[in-house]
């Protein structure tokens, strides 16, 4: 394989990986702090994308649509946390039933409003060009996605290690009861965390739409990829999700070049290998008994 084509593939994989990281980050943060497997994560991702699509179709600027969509998703997140999820912390089965019900509602509403024809958001004009790379050219939008992914990782790292909010969240992951005993309004913390996760789902949904498109059943694909990334990276650690998302992005993209028939299977094989070697995932803190 020509070197510049290989570089092209690696960059494509990296961009895909960053998109996966943004998808999985929301899921892993919600799971890490709230101990909730939000099965509706993929549905939130999809709805975020569709909301932005609805605005851009009305000739609203892409960036404005992005901001609106993220805000709407965050608000939906707060509503879900306050009125539905808030009552069932620690009840695993109830959470499954609830988030599964939300999937039904979100996906069917999206289908109702936007139909089942595949849609897409056009790449914003300012990024609609390609950067020459030897004999091939690489789309600037994907590089932009890589940059956003790295930016989010840095932001998460900064919030987590350098700010008071991060300290509260880290304390919450380790010991939630102690947190409330210290007089911190954990209800507010929980609602914000869920809003943040839902907002991240919306953000990645909008940024992903020009690359992945928008289609019925997308929610399931997104949820599964996010779960695989979380399982490979290890639970409750977004850093694990960062590394495993890049890994999965590269493996999937290069896998499609080398074994086109088995692209998704390769990812799952990767997951099984990781689980055999390290059952708690790459960065997991050890298996629960």
């Amino acid at each position, binding site marked *: 394989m020509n070197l510049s084509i290989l570089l092209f593939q690696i960059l494509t994989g990296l961009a895909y990986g960053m998109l996966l990281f943004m998808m999985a980050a929301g899921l892993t943060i919600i799971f890490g702090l709230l101990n909730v497997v939000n099965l509706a994560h993929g549905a939130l991702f999809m709805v975020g994308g569709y909301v932005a699509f609805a605005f851009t179709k009305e000739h609203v600027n892409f960036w404005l649509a992005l901001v609106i969509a993220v805000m709407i998703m965050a608000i939906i997140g707060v509503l879900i946390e306050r009125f539905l999820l808030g009552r069932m912390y620690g009840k695993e089965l109830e959470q499954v039933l609830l988030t599964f019900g939300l*999937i039904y509602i979100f996906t069917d509403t999206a289908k109702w409003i936007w139909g089942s024809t595949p849609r897409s958001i056009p790449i914003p004009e300012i990024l609609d060009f390609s950067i020459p790379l030897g004999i091939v050219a690489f789309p600037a939008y994907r590089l932009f996605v890589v940059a956003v992914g790295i930016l989010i990782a840095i932001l998460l790292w900064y919030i987590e290690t350098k700010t008071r909010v991060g300290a509260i969240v880290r304390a919450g992951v380790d010991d939630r009861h102690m947190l409330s005993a210290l007089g911190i309004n954990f209800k507010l913390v929980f609602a914000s965390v869920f809003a943040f996760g839902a907002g991240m789902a919306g953000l990645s949904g909008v940024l992903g739409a020009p690359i992945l498109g928008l289609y019925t059943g997308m929610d399931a694909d997104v949820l599964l990829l996010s779960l695989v990334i979380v399982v490979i990276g290890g639970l409750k650690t977004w850093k694990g999700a960062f590394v495993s998302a890049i890994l999965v992005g590269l493996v999937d993209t290069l896998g499609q070049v080398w074994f086109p028939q088995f692209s998704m299977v390769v990812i799952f094989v990767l997951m099984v290998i990781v689980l055999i070697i390290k059952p708690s995932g790459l960065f997991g803190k050890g298996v629960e008994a």
Partner: protein
Amino acid sequence: MNTKTKTFLHLACAVILLLLPLVLSKFGLKLTTEIFIMSIFVLSLGLIIGYAGLVSLGHAAFFGIGVYTVALLGKYVSSSYVLILAAIVFAAVTALLTGMLFIRSSGAYFLMITLAFSQMLFVLAYKLKDITGGADGMPIRATLDLGFGAIDSVKELYYFMAIAFMISYALLYMFIKSPAGKAVVGVKENEHRMKALGYPTRSYKLLAYTISGGFAGFAGALYAYFNHFVSTNVLAWQFSGQVMVMCIVGGVSVLFGPPIGAALFIVLQSYVSSYTERWPIIMGIIFIAFVLSGRGGIAELLIWAWNKVFGNKAEDKPTVPPPSAEPEGPNPKGVASA
């Protein structure tokens, strides 16, 4: 509730199920037949969720293995005995092998891993289009024949599935009453204590998981004979999710809960979808309303109502504890027989 009442209720249910074809329409018969098959599947999931505490979101994998075994092997083998047995064995062996890997983790992690595994099979079946027919599916040519002629009319299938369901129920009932079944419940209630008592706790979970996989495979094989068609939908995670919803709605603390959930889900879905195209929204709202009501599954509600009406003082509990908090080893009626 004493053992005599329990036996009576079980037998009464069996008689009702056997007499139902006298009153049901052809459509109703088909729907009930489907409920029997799904009930076996849901029972298998209820076993690991309710009794072993393993919340799997990938149980469709074993069901799918059962369906595809009959579909693919059925091209070469005609004996129904061999095909059904093969479906059970393949599913159980897969459960055993994957269980060894997965049961090291628990809780949400187990849920995600089982989901990912079933999705791996889904993608495999989807990509191997030449063999499995992929998402478009393939017809199943095998016919059900136990040596007394083909079982293919609506009524024959009804009775076959009804009896298959009753046998499965009875076998699972016997399992949870057996010392091994009680040990499984013990592991769920307090794994550390069971370990301290010298029980190989992981092996007991694995046992339950393997049995569950086998029954799921059995249900899959029956479905193949019932539906005569298979597509990758039987492996899809949405299917696993639906089955899990059936389990939770029915109630997992007792064995008769999951079948009730299956019956309710299937009847409701067929009813609502005949009125509106927007049935998923309505089903979603019903699930959420159900969770918010917070009274456990329907089985728990029934037990509560039974105790209200017939219970003596010792059994008259004002509220039903949630399934996970149930201190007793669950007995099939879920009530501590004082």
